[in-house]
């Protein structure tokens, strides 16, 4: 089996349809929609199209879990023990089991929410972060940035389950949250251990993490106001080992990404 499997080679059955993030960015509706008042973006019953937005988000979580499973598996395989120590590989194998459970949970939750596998398209950006050639970059991009985002997403979904009185959604998100906190911690631990004597490598990894964090805050997707569909889960992030300064930094990045997204939309409109 080859080492380093590119995203386009991810194996899927015929139900899955791949999409590119560029299609979403270049959608001519973006500029127009930003001129609308469509009400608070936060999910809640009675809010604009909450059910379909939650179903769509849940499907995104499902495909994200598949890619997290695949990414952890590849990190266990792609490197020899000089690059990825035995104990790191064991952690990645453990993460495979956890992510496999998350895929199972997501499928059952999807069914519960009336969604079919493959009903919505799949973007592969999570796995793309798991293709970095340095395992420390993978751990920062995936475990710290993206699984940090997963904490925010699951927490938001858990709250949505709570306010809508959905016992299944709340139950499942709570369990997945517990696992993700562990995965983020794994990322932080390995970052510290593998770069203890290599500050340059550490900085490269943190830079990669910032890039991924910013990408996923695009257009105000994540933030701390009612206008952000996904909320920064400060308490859970603290449990996962993020410092207050680090969380503040992500909040700032999110705000910056929102402003840049807005500017890009306006620029595209006047071009």
């Amino acid at each position, binding site marked *: 089996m080859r080492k380093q499997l590119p995203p386009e080679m991810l194996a899927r059955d015929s139900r899955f*349809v791949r*999409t590119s993030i560029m*299609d*979403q960015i270049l*959608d*001519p*509706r973006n500029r*127009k*929609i930003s*001129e*609308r*008042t*469509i*009400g608070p973006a936060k999910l*809640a*019953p*009675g*809010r*604009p*199209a*909450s*059910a*379909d*937005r*939650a*179903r*769509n988000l849940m499907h995104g979580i499902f495909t994200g879990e598949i890619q997290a499973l695949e990414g952890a598996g590849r990190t266990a395989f792609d490197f020899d023990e000089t690059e990825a120590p035995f104990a790191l590989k064991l952690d990645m194998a453990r993460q495979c089991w956890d992510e496999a459970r998350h895929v199972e949970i997501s499928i059952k939750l999807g*069914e*519960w*929410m*009336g*969604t*079919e596998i493959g*009903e*919505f*398209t799949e973007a592969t950006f999570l796995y793309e972060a798991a293709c970095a050639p340095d395992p420390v970059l993978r751990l920062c991009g995936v475990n710290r940035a993206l699984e940090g985002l997963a904490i925010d997403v699951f927490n938001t979904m858990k709250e949505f389950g709570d306010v*809508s*009185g*959905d*016992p*299944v959604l709340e139950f499942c998100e709570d369990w997945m949250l517990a696992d993700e906190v562990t995965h983020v911690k794994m990322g932080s631990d390995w970052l510290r251990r593998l770069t203890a004597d290599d500050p340059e490598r550490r900085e490269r990894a943190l830079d990669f993490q910032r890039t991924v964090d910013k990408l996923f805050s695009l257009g105000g997707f994540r933030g701390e106001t009612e206008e952000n569909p996904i909320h920064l889960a400060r308490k859970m992030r603290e449990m996962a080992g993020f410092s207050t300064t680090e969380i503040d930094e992500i909040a700032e990045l999110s705000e910056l990404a929102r402003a840049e997204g807005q500017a890009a939309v306006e620029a595209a409109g006047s071009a």
Partner: protein
Amino acid sequence: MTVVSIVPELFTLIEFDAERIKEIASEVAKSLAFPSDVDVHIEVDEVLPAPLNSSQADYLGGRAELWFTGGAFEDTHKGRHIDEVLARCGLGEALLRVKDRISGGFEDAPNDSEISERQRALWDAYADGRLTRLEGFVVREPRRRYVYRLECGFNDVADAAYDQLWASDATTWADLLEIEARLMEADPTERDAKPSARRISLRQTQ
């Protein structure tokens, strides 16, 4: 034959064909035995993508006034393109509800912009149940059930009401209000009574 008109006649942001939507609407009207002397006017808001799926169906001034977000008809695999199966179903639900308003026991129902999400969820379950029993409509029942539960509650009373509505061919607005009262008793969680996903809020510009 039902006269159908549509706005916009030319879509510029998405790849929808207005003529094709009119054709589908005519076919749907025919299969629902929609009164042929009632004109149908459709407005599709092409700015709003999936999953901002929403619609309204009113009977105003002797005409069926339908409004949809583009997302309501959008192919979930191919953005900005129409999914005709979805469009047929959405038009079917809307025209059935207008038919209800004309002479199906919903004559005194308020306009869609004035009814709550919960009332709407009840009515949609009633409409979709009937649609599944007709030829040519693919109703995604599990989705409908989830939308319904989200607005009406995750409990046995709500589920029983859903099954009742789904199987019914003769529910009235008064029946809906009676069911709504039952649901309130089973799940008194306060919900936003305003129909926020609708045309008025979504079409406003800043």
